[in-house]
Protein backbone atom coordinates (compact mmCIF):
# COMPACT_ATOMS: atom_id res chain seq x y z
CA UNK A 1 0.00 0.00 0.00
CA UNK A 2 2.72 2.47 1.02
CA UNK A 3 4.87 1.47 -1.91
CA UNK A 4 1.89 1.97 -4.19
CA UNK A 5 1.25 5.45 -2.81
CA UNK A 6 4.89 6.53 -2.79
CA UNK A 7 5.49 5.45 -6.36
CA UNK A 8 2.29 7.25 -7.41
CA UNK A 9 3.55 10.40 -5.69
CA UNK A 10 7.01 10.16 -7.27
CA UNK A 11 5.54 9.60 -10.73
CA UNK A 12 3.17 12.48 -10.11
CA UNK A 13 6.08 14.77 -9.24
CA UNK A 14 7.79 13.79 -12.46
CA UNK A 15 4.80 14.54 -14.69
CA UNK A 16 4.04 17.59 -12.55
CA UNK A 17 7.40 19.02 -13.60
CA UNK A 18 6.14 19.14 -17.19
CA UNK A 19 3.04 20.98 -16.06
CA UNK A 20 5.30 23.44 -14.27
CA UNK A 21 7.16 24.12 -17.50
CA UNK A 22 3.96 24.62 -19.49
CA UNK A 23 2.45 26.78 -16.76
CA UNK A 24 5.52 29.03 -16.30
CA UNK A 25 4.94 30.75 -19.63
CA UNK A 26 1.22 31.05 -18.97
CA UNK A 27 1.71 32.60 -15.55
CA UNK A 28 4.31 35.04 -16.88
CA UNK A 29 1.92 36.17 -19.61
CA UNK A 30 -0.92 36.50 -17.13
CA UNK A 31 1.19 38.27 -14.54
CA UNK A 32 2.34 40.97 -16.94
CA UNK A 33 -0.41 41.33 -19.52
CA UNK A 34 -3.30 40.20 -17.32
CA UNK A 35 -4.63 38.17 -20.22
CA UNK A 36 -5.56 34.53 -20.51
CA UNK A 37 -3.59 33.02 -23.33
CA UNK A 38 -5.90 30.40 -24.78
CA UNK A 39 -3.43 29.66 -27.60
CA UNK A 40 -1.00 28.18 -25.06
CA UNK A 41 -1.81 24.54 -25.79
CA UNK A 42 -1.61 24.91 -29.55
CA UNK A 43 1.69 26.80 -29.38
CA UNK A 44 3.03 24.00 -27.18
CA UNK A 45 1.93 21.57 -29.88
CA UNK A 46 3.85 23.58 -32.51
CA UNK A 47 6.99 23.35 -30.36
CA UNK A 48 6.51 19.61 -30.00
CA UNK A 49 6.26 19.24 -33.78
CA UNK A 50 9.48 21.26 -34.13
CA UNK A 51 11.22 18.87 -31.72
CA UNK A 52 9.70 15.89 -33.50
CA UNK A 53 10.80 16.95 -37.00
CA UNK A 54 14.26 18.00 -35.78
CA UNK A 55 14.65 14.43 -34.53
CA UNK A 56 12.96 12.50 -37.33
CA UNK A 57 14.38 14.48 -40.28
CA UNK A 58 17.72 15.78 -39.01
CA UNK A 59 18.42 13.38 -36.16
CA UNK A 60 18.83 16.20 -33.65
CA UNK A 61 18.10 15.27 -30.05
CA UNK A 62 15.33 17.32 -28.37
CA UNK A 63 17.86 18.40 -25.75
CA UNK A 64 19.88 20.04 -28.52
CA UNK A 65 16.78 21.51 -30.14
CA UNK A 66 15.75 23.09 -26.83
CA UNK A 67 17.68 26.40 -27.02
CA UNK A 68 16.59 26.87 -30.64
CA UNK A 69 12.98 26.14 -29.73
CA UNK A 70 13.21 28.78 -26.98
CA UNK A 71 14.58 31.31 -29.42
CA UNK A 72 12.00 30.42 -32.06
CA UNK A 73 9.27 30.58 -29.44
CA UNK A 74 10.39 34.02 -28.37
CA UNK A 75 10.38 35.37 -31.92
CA UNK A 76 7.03 33.77 -32.73
CA UNK A 77 5.46 35.06 -29.52
CA UNK A 78 6.84 38.58 -30.03
CA UNK A 79 5.51 38.71 -33.58
CA UNK A 80 2.14 37.22 -32.64
CA UNK A 81 1.66 39.86 -30.00
CA UNK A 82 2.83 42.71 -32.18
CA UNK A 83 1.04 41.55 -35.31
CA UNK A 84 -2.20 40.05 -34.04
CA UNK A 85 -3.04 40.08 -30.33
CA UNK A 86 -2.05 43.65 -29.50
CA UNK A 87 -3.37 44.99 -32.77
CA UNK A 88 -6.83 43.45 -32.84
CA UNK A 89 -7.81 43.35 -29.20
CA UNK A 90 -8.24 47.08 -28.47
CA UNK A 91 -7.10 46.21 -24.95
CA UNK A 92 -10.29 44.43 -23.92
CA UNK A 93 -9.99 41.32 -21.77
CA UNK A 94 -12.70 39.27 -23.50
CA UNK A 95 -11.41 40.27 -26.93
CA UNK A 96 -7.95 38.94 -26.12
CA UNK A 97 -9.45 35.69 -24.86
CA UNK A 98 -11.39 35.30 -28.13
CA UNK A 99 -8.42 36.29 -30.28
CA UNK A 100 -6.16 33.76 -28.60
CA UNK A 101 -8.99 31.23 -29.09
CA UNK A 102 -9.00 32.17 -32.78
CA UNK A 103 -5.23 31.70 -32.92
CA UNK A 104 -5.57 28.31 -31.24
CA UNK A 105 -8.16 27.23 -33.82
CA UNK A 106 -5.97 28.41 -36.71
CA UNK A 107 -2.73 26.84 -35.45
CA UNK A 108 -4.36 23.57 -34.50
CA UNK A 109 -6.18 23.11 -37.78
CA UNK A 110 -3.23 24.20 -39.91
CA UNK A 111 -1.29 21.42 -38.16
CA UNK A 112 -4.15 19.04 -38.83
CA UNK A 113 -4.08 20.09 -42.49
CA UNK A 114 -0.33 19.67 -42.92
CA UNK A 115 0.56 16.87 -40.49
CA UNK A 116 -2.73 14.86 -40.43
CA UNK A 117 -4.16 13.62 -37.16
CA UNK A 118 -1.62 10.78 -36.61
CA UNK A 119 0.01 10.64 -33.22
CA UNK A 120 3.78 10.54 -33.47
CA UNK A 121 6.46 9.70 -30.95
CA UNK A 122 10.21 9.68 -31.08
CA UNK A 123 12.27 6.82 -29.77
CA UNK A 124 15.71 8.13 -29.00
CA UNK A 125 18.52 6.14 -27.41
CA UNK A 126 18.19 6.33 -23.65
CA UNK A 127 14.55 7.32 -23.92
CA UNK A 128 13.37 4.24 -22.07
CA UNK A 129 16.09 4.26 -19.39
CA UNK A 130 14.91 3.93 -15.84
CA UNK A 131 16.61 4.26 -12.51
CA UNK A 132 15.64 1.56 -10.03
CA UNK A 133 15.91 2.29 -6.32
CA UNK A 134 14.56 -0.72 -4.45
CA UNK A 135 10.97 -1.07 -5.72
CA UNK A 136 10.88 2.47 -7.06
CA UNK A 137 11.26 3.03 -10.80
CA UNK A 138 11.96 6.49 -12.21
CA UNK A 139 12.12 7.25 -15.92
CA UNK A 140 15.34 9.08 -16.82
CA UNK A 141 13.86 11.52 -19.38
CA UNK A 142 11.23 12.50 -16.83
CA UNK A 143 13.89 13.01 -14.18
CA UNK A 144 15.78 15.29 -16.58
CA UNK A 145 12.57 17.27 -17.21
CA UNK A 146 12.06 17.53 -13.48
CA UNK A 147 15.51 19.01 -12.92
CA UNK A 148 15.11 21.26 -15.97
CA UNK A 149 11.82 22.59 -14.62
CA UNK A 150 13.47 23.55 -11.34
CA UNK A 151 16.41 25.19 -13.12
CA UNK A 152 14.21 27.08 -15.56
CA UNK A 153 11.89 28.27 -12.82
CA UNK A 154 14.82 29.53 -10.72
CA UNK A 155 16.47 31.12 -13.76
CA UNK A 156 13.33 32.93 -14.82
CA UNK A 157 12.67 34.20 -11.30
CA UNK A 158 16.24 35.48 -11.03
CA UNK A 159 16.10 37.12 -14.44
CA UNK A 160 12.82 38.87 -13.73
CA UNK A 161 13.96 40.06 -10.30
CA UNK A 162 17.50 41.13 -11.20
CA UNK A 163 17.87 42.26 -14.82
CA UNK A 164 16.90 45.70 -16.12
CA UNK A 165 14.42 44.18 -18.54
CA UNK A 166 12.97 42.14 -15.66
CA UNK A 167 12.56 45.34 -13.65
CA UNK A 168 10.76 46.98 -16.57
CA UNK A 169 8.52 43.92 -16.89
CA UNK A 170 7.67 44.03 -13.20
CA UNK A 171 7.03 47.75 -13.41
CA UNK A 172 4.57 47.27 -16.26
CA UNK A 173 2.89 44.38 -14.46
CA UNK A 174 2.38 46.43 -11.31
CA UNK A 175 1.51 49.85 -12.66
CA UNK A 176 1.04 50.25 -16.39
CA UNK A 177 0.47 54.01 -16.44
CA UNK A 178 3.31 54.73 -14.06
CA UNK A 179 5.67 52.65 -16.16
CA UNK A 180 4.64 54.59 -19.24
CA UNK A 181 5.26 57.88 -17.44
CA UNK A 182 8.85 56.96 -16.55
CA UNK A 183 9.54 56.17 -20.18
CA UNK A 184 9.02 52.43 -20.51
CA UNK A 185 7.63 51.36 -23.86
CA UNK A 186 4.69 49.39 -22.52
CA UNK A 187 3.62 47.77 -25.79
CA UNK A 188 7.18 46.53 -26.33
CA UNK A 189 7.32 45.05 -22.82
CA UNK A 190 4.01 43.32 -23.49
CA UNK A 191 5.35 41.81 -26.69
CA UNK A 192 8.60 40.76 -24.95
CA UNK A 193 6.72 39.18 -22.06
CA UNK A 194 4.49 37.27 -24.46
CA UNK A 195 7.63 36.18 -26.32
CA UNK A 196 9.28 35.02 -23.08
CA UNK A 197 6.15 33.07 -22.18
CA UNK A 198 6.23 31.26 -25.51
CA UNK A 199 10.00 30.71 -25.16
CA UNK A 200 9.30 28.79 -21.91
CA UNK A 201 6.82 26.79 -23.92
CA UNK A 202 9.57 25.91 -26.43
CA UNK A 203 11.60 24.42 -23.60
CA UNK A 204 8.57 22.57 -22.26
CA UNK A 205 7.80 21.18 -25.74
CA UNK A 206 11.30 19.74 -26.24
CA UNK A 207 11.42 18.15 -22.79
CA UNK A 208 7.90 16.81 -23.19
CA UNK A 209 8.67 15.28 -26.57
CA UNK A 210 11.16 12.87 -24.97
CA UNK A 211 8.37 11.02 -23.18
CA UNK A 212 5.08 12.02 -24.83
CA UNK A 213 3.39 11.79 -28.21
CA UNK A 214 2.45 14.69 -30.45
CA UNK A 215 -0.70 15.17 -32.51
CA UNK A 216 -2.55 18.32 -33.62
CA UNK A 217 -4.97 17.96 -30.69
CA UNK A 218 -2.30 17.32 -28.04
CA UNK A 219 -2.61 20.90 -26.79
CA UNK A 220 -6.11 20.14 -25.45
CA UNK A 221 -4.61 17.74 -22.95
CA UNK A 222 -2.47 20.52 -21.52
CA UNK A 223 -4.64 23.63 -21.74
CA UNK A 224 -6.84 22.83 -18.77
CA UNK A 225 -3.92 21.41 -16.79
CA UNK A 226 -1.86 24.54 -17.38
CA UNK A 227 -4.72 26.82 -16.37
CA UNK A 228 -5.36 24.72 -13.28
CA UNK A 229 -1.69 24.93 -12.33
CA UNK A 230 -1.60 28.68 -12.78
CA UNK A 231 -4.83 29.31 -10.90
CA UNK A 232 -3.83 26.93 -8.10
CA UNK A 233 -0.43 28.54 -7.69
CA UNK A 234 -1.73 32.08 -7.99
CA UNK A 235 -1.88 33.89 -11.30
CA UNK A 236 1.47 35.51 -12.06
CA UNK A 237 3.51 33.71 -9.41
CA UNK A 238 6.49 31.58 -10.51
CA UNK A 239 6.82 29.80 -7.18
CA UNK A 240 3.09 29.21 -7.37
CA UNK A 241 3.44 27.64 -10.80
CA UNK A 242 6.19 25.38 -9.46
CA UNK A 243 4.29 24.23 -6.39
CA UNK A 244 0.96 24.17 -8.24
CA UNK A 245 2.34 22.05 -11.08
CA UNK A 246 3.85 19.51 -8.69
CA UNK A 247 0.63 19.32 -6.66
CA UNK A 248 -1.43 18.81 -9.82
CA UNK A 249 0.92 16.11 -11.04
CA UNK A 250 0.71 14.25 -7.74
CA UNK A 251 -3.07 14.72 -7.47
CA UNK A 252 -3.56 13.35 -10.98
CA UNK A 253 -1.26 10.40 -10.41
CA UNK A 254 -2.73 9.50 -7.00
CA UNK A 255 -6.35 9.85 -8.15
CA UNK A 256 -5.49 7.79 -11.22
CA UNK A 257 -4.03 5.10 -8.98
CA UNK A 258 -7.05 4.99 -6.68
CA UNK A 259 -10.01 5.89 -8.91
CA UNK A 260 -8.85 4.12 -12.04
CA UNK A 261 -7.66 5.48 -15.33
CA UNK A 262 -11.04 6.84 -16.48
CA UNK A 263 -12.50 8.43 -13.37
CA UNK A 264 -9.03 9.53 -12.21
CA UNK A 265 -9.04 12.20 -14.91
CA UNK A 266 -11.65 14.06 -12.92
CA UNK A 267 -9.03 15.33 -10.45
CA UNK A 268 -7.74 18.20 -12.59
CA UNK A 269 -11.01 19.84 -13.70
CA UNK A 270 -12.41 19.30 -10.20
CA UNK A 271 -9.44 21.02 -8.55
CA UNK A 272 -9.78 23.79 -11.10
CA UNK A 273 -13.45 24.40 -10.32
CA UNK A 274 -12.92 24.25 -6.56
CA UNK A 275 -9.96 26.62 -6.62
CA UNK A 276 -11.76 29.11 -8.86
CA UNK A 277 -14.79 29.05 -6.60
CA UNK A 278 -13.20 29.06 -3.17
CA UNK A 279 -9.74 30.53 -3.50
CA UNK A 280 -9.40 32.37 -6.84
CA UNK A 281 -6.19 34.08 -5.67
CA UNK A 282 -4.51 30.68 -5.49
CA UNK A 283 -2.11 29.34 -2.89
CA UNK A 284 0.45 32.06 -3.51
CA UNK A 285 -0.85 35.47 -4.42
CA UNK A 286 0.50 36.70 -7.74
CA UNK A 287 3.83 38.07 -6.62
CA UNK A 288 5.01 40.29 -9.42
Amino acid at each position, binding site marked *: MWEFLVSAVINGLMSGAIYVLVALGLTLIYGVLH*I*INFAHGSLLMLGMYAAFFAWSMLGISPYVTLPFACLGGFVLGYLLYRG*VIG*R*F*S*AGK*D*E*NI*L*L*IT*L*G*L*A*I*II*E*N*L*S*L*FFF*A*SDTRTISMPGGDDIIIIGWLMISVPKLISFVAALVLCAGLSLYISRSDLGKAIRAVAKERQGARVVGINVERIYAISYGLGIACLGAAACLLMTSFYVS*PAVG*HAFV*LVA*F*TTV*VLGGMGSFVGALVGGLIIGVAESVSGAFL*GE*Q*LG*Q*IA*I*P*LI*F*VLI*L*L*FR*PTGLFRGSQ
Partner: protein
Amino acid sequence: MNTEVTPARRGILVLALIAAVMGYPFVFTSNYAIELGMLVLLGAFLGQAWNVAGGFAGQFSFGHAAFFGTGAYCSAILVSTYGVNPWLAFALAAVSGAVVGGIVGALSFRFGLRGSYFALITLAFAEILRVLADSVPITRGGLGILISADPGWKNLQFESSTGVYYFAAVLCAISLLIAYWLKTSRFGARLAAIRENEAAASALGVNVFWQKVHCLVLSGAMSAVGGAFYVQKYLFIDPYLAYNINRSVEMLLISMIGGAGTIFGPFVGALAIGLIGEGTRALSTAPGLSLVVYGLILILIIGFLPQGLIGLTSKLRRKGASNAS
Protein backbone atom coordinates in the same frame (compact mmCIF):
# COMPACT_ATOMS: atom_id res chain seq x y z
CA MET B 1 -32.33 55.27 -52.32
CA ASN B 2 -33.87 55.13 -48.89
CA THR B 3 -32.34 52.19 -47.03
CA GLU B 4 -33.87 52.66 -43.60
CA VAL B 5 -35.19 49.51 -41.91
CA THR B 6 -38.89 50.17 -41.46
CA PRO B 7 -41.22 47.66 -39.77
CA ALA B 8 -42.75 46.89 -43.17
CA ARG B 9 -39.37 46.12 -44.70
CA ARG B 10 -38.41 44.00 -41.72
CA GLY B 11 -41.69 42.09 -42.13
CA ILE B 12 -40.93 41.46 -45.80
CA LEU B 13 -37.42 40.27 -44.92
CA VAL B 14 -38.77 37.85 -42.32
CA LEU B 15 -41.40 36.50 -44.75
CA ALA B 16 -38.71 36.06 -47.41
CA LEU B 17 -36.54 34.19 -44.89
CA ILE B 18 -39.41 31.88 -43.97
CA ALA B 19 -40.16 31.23 -47.64
CA ALA B 20 -36.48 30.51 -48.34
CA VAL B 21 -36.18 28.05 -45.45
CA MET B 22 -39.48 26.33 -46.29
CA GLY B 23 -38.75 26.17 -50.03
CA TYR B 24 -35.12 25.06 -49.81
CA PRO B 25 -35.83 21.29 -49.83
CA PHE B 26 -37.96 21.70 -52.98
CA VAL B 27 -35.15 23.45 -54.85
CA PHE B 28 -32.22 21.40 -53.58
CA THR B 29 -33.66 17.92 -53.50
CA SER B 30 -30.54 15.80 -52.98
CA ASN B 31 -30.14 14.17 -49.57
CA TYR B 32 -26.74 15.80 -49.20
CA ALA B 33 -28.12 19.32 -49.73
CA ILE B 34 -31.01 18.74 -47.34
CA GLU B 35 -28.67 17.33 -44.69
CA LEU B 36 -26.49 20.40 -45.16
CA GLY B 37 -29.48 22.70 -44.74
CA MET B 38 -30.48 20.80 -41.61
CA LEU B 39 -26.96 21.26 -40.17
CA VAL B 40 -27.12 25.00 -40.85
CA LEU B 41 -30.48 25.22 -39.05
CA LEU B 42 -29.20 23.16 -36.11
CA GLY B 43 -26.09 25.36 -36.01
CA ALA B 44 -28.27 28.47 -36.01
CA PHE B 45 -30.32 27.01 -33.16
CA LEU B 46 -27.26 26.08 -31.06
CA GLY B 47 -25.57 29.38 -31.88
CA GLN B 48 -28.69 31.16 -30.63
CA ALA B 49 -28.55 29.10 -27.42
CA TRP B 50 -25.00 30.36 -26.87
CA ASN B 51 -26.07 33.86 -27.91
CA VAL B 52 -28.65 34.02 -25.12
CA ALA B 53 -25.83 33.93 -22.56
CA GLY B 54 -22.79 35.08 -24.54
CA GLY B 55 -24.43 37.70 -26.72
CA PHE B 56 -27.44 39.14 -24.92
CA ALA B 57 -25.96 38.95 -21.42
CA GLY B 58 -22.24 39.11 -22.28
CA GLN B 59 -21.41 35.92 -20.35
CA PHE B 60 -18.87 34.23 -22.62
CA SER B 61 -18.87 30.52 -22.16
CA PHE B 62 -16.31 28.06 -23.48
CA GLY B 63 -18.26 25.08 -22.18
CA HIS B 64 -21.76 25.02 -23.65
CA ALA B 65 -21.12 21.42 -24.60
CA ALA B 66 -21.87 20.72 -20.91
CA PHE B 67 -25.54 21.53 -21.60
CA PHE B 68 -25.66 20.06 -25.10
CA GLY B 69 -24.19 16.77 -23.89
CA THR B 70 -26.41 16.58 -20.84
CA GLY B 71 -29.52 17.03 -23.00
CA ALA B 72 -28.28 14.39 -25.40
CA TYR B 73 -27.54 11.89 -22.62
CA CYS B 74 -30.75 12.64 -20.76
CA SER B 75 -32.96 11.85 -23.74
CA ALA B 76 -30.81 8.89 -24.85
CA ILE B 77 -30.86 7.26 -21.40
CA LEU B 78 -34.59 7.85 -20.88
CA VAL B 79 -35.49 6.44 -24.29
CA SER B 80 -33.12 3.49 -24.56
CA THR B 81 -32.76 2.38 -20.92
CA TYR B 82 -36.15 3.30 -19.45
CA GLY B 83 -38.33 3.16 -22.56
CA VAL B 84 -39.74 6.65 -21.95
CA ASN B 85 -41.72 8.19 -24.80
CA PRO B 86 -39.22 10.16 -26.95
CA TRP B 87 -41.39 13.30 -26.93
CA LEU B 88 -41.46 13.29 -23.15
CA ALA B 89 -37.73 12.52 -23.06
CA PHE B 90 -37.17 15.47 -25.38
CA ALA B 91 -38.96 17.78 -22.97
CA LEU B 92 -37.14 16.32 -19.96
CA ALA B 93 -33.83 16.86 -21.76
CA ALA B 94 -34.62 20.59 -21.85
CA VAL B 95 -35.26 20.43 -18.10
CA SER B 96 -31.93 18.66 -17.53
CA GLY B 97 -30.11 21.40 -19.45
CA ALA B 98 -31.92 24.04 -17.44
CA VAL B 99 -30.88 22.35 -14.20
CA VAL B 100 -27.22 22.06 -15.22
CA GLY B 101 -27.32 25.66 -16.47
CA GLY B 102 -28.78 26.73 -13.13
CA ILE B 103 -26.13 24.85 -11.14
CA VAL B 104 -23.21 26.11 -13.22
CA GLY B 105 -24.60 29.65 -13.16
CA ALA B 106 -25.46 29.68 -9.46
CA LEU B 107 -21.99 28.39 -8.49
CA SER B 108 -19.99 30.61 -10.84
CA PHE B 109 -21.96 33.78 -10.29
CA ARG B 110 -22.37 33.31 -6.54
CA PHE B 111 -18.58 33.29 -6.29
CA GLY B 112 -18.34 36.30 -8.56
CA LEU B 113 -16.63 34.78 -11.59
CA ARG B 114 -16.72 37.07 -14.60
CA GLY B 115 -15.23 37.44 -18.05
CA SER B 116 -12.39 35.09 -18.76
CA TYR B 117 -12.78 33.26 -15.46
CA PHE B 118 -16.37 32.39 -16.27
CA ALA B 119 -15.25 31.11 -19.68
CA LEU B 120 -12.63 28.89 -18.05
CA ILE B 121 -14.90 27.45 -15.39
CA THR B 122 -17.54 26.47 -17.95
CA LEU B 123 -14.79 24.67 -19.83
CA ALA B 124 -13.90 22.79 -16.65
CA PHE B 125 -17.56 21.86 -15.97
CA ALA B 126 -17.84 20.37 -19.45
CA GLU B 127 -14.65 18.40 -18.83
CA ILE B 128 -15.94 17.08 -15.48
CA LEU B 129 -19.13 15.90 -17.17
CA ARG B 130 -17.13 14.26 -19.95
CA VAL B 131 -15.03 12.30 -17.45
CA LEU B 132 -18.17 11.28 -15.56
CA ALA B 133 -19.93 10.18 -18.75
CA ASP B 134 -16.84 8.16 -19.56
CA SER B 135 -16.83 6.32 -16.24
CA VAL B 136 -20.28 5.90 -14.68
CA PRO B 137 -22.41 2.87 -15.59
CA ILE B 138 -25.63 4.72 -16.48
CA THR B 139 -24.02 6.26 -19.58
CA ARG B 140 -22.35 2.94 -20.48
CA GLY B 141 -18.98 4.72 -20.41
CA GLY B 142 -16.98 4.98 -23.56
CA LEU B 143 -19.24 2.51 -25.38
CA GLY B 144 -21.90 5.13 -25.78
CA ILE B 145 -25.65 4.67 -26.06
CA LEU B 146 -27.43 3.41 -29.14
CA ILE B 147 -31.12 4.07 -29.70
CA SER B 148 -32.92 1.50 -31.79
CA ALA B 149 -34.18 2.91 -35.05
CA ASP B 150 -37.98 2.90 -35.31
CA PRO B 151 -38.99 5.78 -37.60
CA GLY B 152 -42.32 7.48 -37.06
CA TRP B 153 -43.84 10.59 -35.55
CA LYS B 154 -44.63 8.69 -32.38
CA ASN B 155 -40.92 8.09 -31.78
CA LEU B 156 -39.71 11.50 -32.92
CA GLN B 157 -37.67 9.80 -35.62
CA PHE B 158 -37.93 10.70 -39.26
CA GLU B 159 -37.79 8.45 -42.29
CA SER B 160 -36.82 11.19 -44.70
CA SER B 161 -34.13 13.80 -44.34
CA THR B 162 -36.82 16.38 -45.21
CA GLY B 163 -38.66 15.56 -41.98
CA VAL B 164 -35.55 16.19 -39.89
CA TYR B 165 -34.93 19.36 -41.86
CA TYR B 166 -38.34 20.80 -41.02
CA PHE B 167 -38.00 19.74 -37.39
CA ALA B 168 -34.73 21.71 -37.24
CA ALA B 169 -36.47 24.62 -38.96
CA VAL B 170 -39.16 24.67 -36.26
CA LEU B 171 -36.51 24.66 -33.49
CA CYS B 172 -34.66 27.44 -35.26
CA ALA B 173 -37.85 29.50 -35.54
CA ILE B 174 -38.55 29.05 -31.83
CA SER B 175 -35.01 30.17 -31.00
CA LEU B 176 -35.50 33.29 -33.14
CA LEU B 177 -38.72 34.06 -31.26
CA ILE B 178 -36.85 33.70 -27.96
CA ALA B 179 -34.18 36.08 -29.25
CA TYR B 180 -36.88 38.55 -30.36
CA TRP B 181 -38.41 38.31 -26.91
CA LEU B 182 -35.00 38.99 -25.32
CA LYS B 183 -34.55 42.02 -27.54
CA THR B 184 -37.90 43.50 -26.57
CA SER B 185 -38.66 42.31 -23.02
CA ARG B 186 -37.68 43.80 -19.69
CA PHE B 187 -35.68 40.65 -18.90
CA GLY B 188 -33.65 41.19 -22.07
CA ALA B 189 -33.14 44.84 -21.21
CA ARG B 190 -31.80 43.87 -17.78
CA LEU B 191 -29.40 41.38 -19.39
CA ALA B 192 -28.20 44.09 -21.77
CA ALA B 193 -27.64 46.42 -18.81
CA ILE B 194 -25.58 43.70 -17.10
CA ARG B 195 -23.58 43.15 -20.28
CA GLU B 196 -22.76 46.83 -20.69
CA ASN B 197 -21.96 47.64 -17.07
CA GLU B 198 -22.63 45.20 -14.29
CA ALA B 199 -21.97 47.62 -11.43
CA ALA B 200 -24.25 50.25 -12.92
CA ALA B 201 -27.01 47.68 -13.51
CA SER B 202 -26.73 46.57 -9.91
CA ALA B 203 -26.84 50.17 -8.67
CA LEU B 204 -30.04 50.71 -10.67
CA GLY B 205 -31.69 47.87 -8.78
CA VAL B 206 -31.18 44.94 -11.14
CA ASN B 207 -30.66 41.71 -9.23
CA VAL B 208 -27.58 40.81 -11.25
CA PHE B 209 -27.08 37.36 -9.76
CA TRP B 210 -30.61 36.09 -10.44
CA GLN B 211 -30.85 37.59 -13.90
CA LYS B 212 -27.59 35.91 -14.90
CA VAL B 213 -28.66 32.58 -13.44
CA HIS B 214 -32.03 32.78 -15.26
CA CYS B 215 -30.22 33.58 -18.46
CA LEU B 216 -27.97 30.53 -18.09
CA VAL B 217 -30.99 28.35 -17.28
CA LEU B 218 -32.62 29.43 -20.54
CA SER B 219 -29.41 29.05 -22.53
CA GLY B 220 -28.75 25.64 -20.96
CA ALA B 221 -32.25 24.40 -21.74
CA MET B 222 -31.94 25.48 -25.37
CA SER B 223 -28.52 23.83 -25.76
CA ALA B 224 -29.88 20.64 -24.23
CA VAL B 225 -32.75 20.63 -26.74
CA GLY B 226 -30.07 20.79 -29.44
CA GLY B 227 -28.40 17.76 -27.84
CA ALA B 228 -31.68 15.83 -27.71
CA PHE B 229 -32.30 16.68 -31.36
CA TYR B 230 -28.83 15.38 -32.19
CA VAL B 231 -29.58 12.06 -30.47
CA GLN B 232 -32.93 11.68 -32.25
CA LYS B 233 -31.23 12.33 -35.58
CA TYR B 234 -28.10 10.18 -35.23
CA LEU B 235 -29.49 7.66 -32.68
CA PHE B 236 -26.11 7.48 -30.92
CA ILE B 237 -24.20 9.40 -28.29
CA ASP B 238 -20.87 8.89 -26.54
CA PRO B 239 -18.83 11.05 -24.14
CA TYR B 240 -16.69 12.47 -26.89
CA LEU B 241 -19.62 13.50 -29.11
CA ALA B 242 -21.52 14.88 -26.14
CA TYR B 243 -18.93 16.95 -24.30
CA ASN B 244 -16.42 17.81 -27.00
CA ILE B 245 -14.83 21.24 -26.61
CA ASN B 246 -15.18 21.68 -30.37
CA ARG B 247 -18.96 21.73 -29.88
CA SER B 248 -18.66 24.62 -27.42
CA VAL B 249 -16.30 26.46 -29.73
CA GLU B 250 -18.58 25.94 -32.73
CA MET B 251 -21.56 27.43 -30.87
CA LEU B 252 -19.43 30.42 -29.91
CA LEU B 253 -18.05 30.86 -33.43
CA ILE B 254 -21.48 30.79 -35.07
CA SER B 255 -22.78 33.45 -32.75
CA MET B 256 -19.66 35.64 -32.79
CA ILE B 257 -19.20 35.50 -36.55
CA GLY B 258 -22.83 36.25 -37.31
CA GLY B 259 -23.18 38.89 -34.63
CA ALA B 260 -23.40 38.27 -30.88
CA GLY B 261 -26.31 39.94 -29.13
CA THR B 262 -28.40 40.28 -32.30
CA ILE B 263 -31.52 38.34 -33.25
CA PHE B 264 -30.42 37.07 -36.65
CA GLY B 265 -26.68 36.94 -35.92
CA PRO B 266 -26.50 33.19 -35.19
CA PHE B 267 -28.57 32.41 -38.29
CA VAL B 268 -26.24 34.49 -40.48
CA GLY B 269 -23.24 32.95 -38.72
CA ALA B 270 -24.45 29.38 -39.26
CA LEU B 271 -25.14 30.15 -42.92
CA ALA B 272 -21.71 31.73 -43.37
CA ILE B 273 -19.97 28.82 -41.66
CA GLY B 274 -21.93 26.32 -43.75
CA LEU B 275 -21.01 28.08 -46.99
CA ILE B 276 -17.35 28.47 -46.00
CA GLY B 277 -17.27 24.80 -45.04
CA GLU B 278 -18.60 23.78 -48.46
CA GLY B 279 -16.26 26.20 -50.24
CA THR B 280 -13.12 24.94 -48.54
CA ARG B 281 -14.23 21.35 -49.05
CA ALA B 282 -14.32 22.08 -52.78
CA LEU B 283 -10.73 23.35 -52.54
CA SER B 284 -9.34 20.47 -50.54
CA THR B 285 -10.72 17.42 -48.82
CA ALA B 286 -8.01 17.39 -46.15
CA PRO B 287 -9.51 18.18 -42.73
CA GLY B 288 -8.91 21.42 -40.90
CA LEU B 289 -8.95 24.01 -43.67
CA SER B 290 -12.48 25.26 -42.99
CA LEU B 291 -11.70 25.75 -39.30
CA VAL B 292 -8.58 27.75 -40.19
CA VAL B 293 -10.85 30.12 -42.11
CA TYR B 294 -13.33 30.32 -39.19
CA GLY B 295 -10.48 31.21 -36.83
CA LEU B 296 -9.23 33.93 -39.19
CA ILE B 297 -12.72 35.37 -39.53
CA LEU B 298 -13.16 35.33 -35.74
CA ILE B 299 -10.00 37.41 -35.28
CA LEU B 300 -10.94 39.82 -38.07
CA ILE B 301 -14.46 40.21 -36.69
CA ILE B 302 -13.15 41.06 -33.24
CA GLY B 303 -10.70 43.52 -34.75
CA PHE B 304 -12.98 45.28 -37.19
CA LEU B 305 -16.63 44.21 -36.85
CA PRO B 306 -17.61 43.73 -33.22
CA GLN B 307 -21.23 43.43 -34.39
CA GLY B 308 -20.37 40.46 -36.57
CA LEU B 309 -21.45 39.94 -40.18
CA ILE B 310 -24.87 41.39 -39.32
CA GLY B 311 -23.07 44.60 -38.40
CA LEU B 312 -21.74 44.73 -41.95
CA THR B 313 -25.19 45.66 -43.32
CA SER B 314 -25.63 48.65 -41.03
CA LYS B 315 -22.04 49.72 -41.68
CA LEU B 316 -22.61 49.62 -45.44
CA ARG B 317 -25.92 51.39 -45.04
CA ARG B 318 -24.28 54.23 -43.11
CA LYS B 319 -21.60 54.45 -45.76
CA GLY B 320 -24.25 54.55 -48.50
CA ALA B 321 -26.16 57.24 -46.64
CA SER B 322 -23.09 59.42 -46.17
CA ASN B 323 -22.16 59.01 -49.85
CA ALA B 324 -25.65 60.01 -50.93
CA SER B 325 -25.77 63.18 -48.84
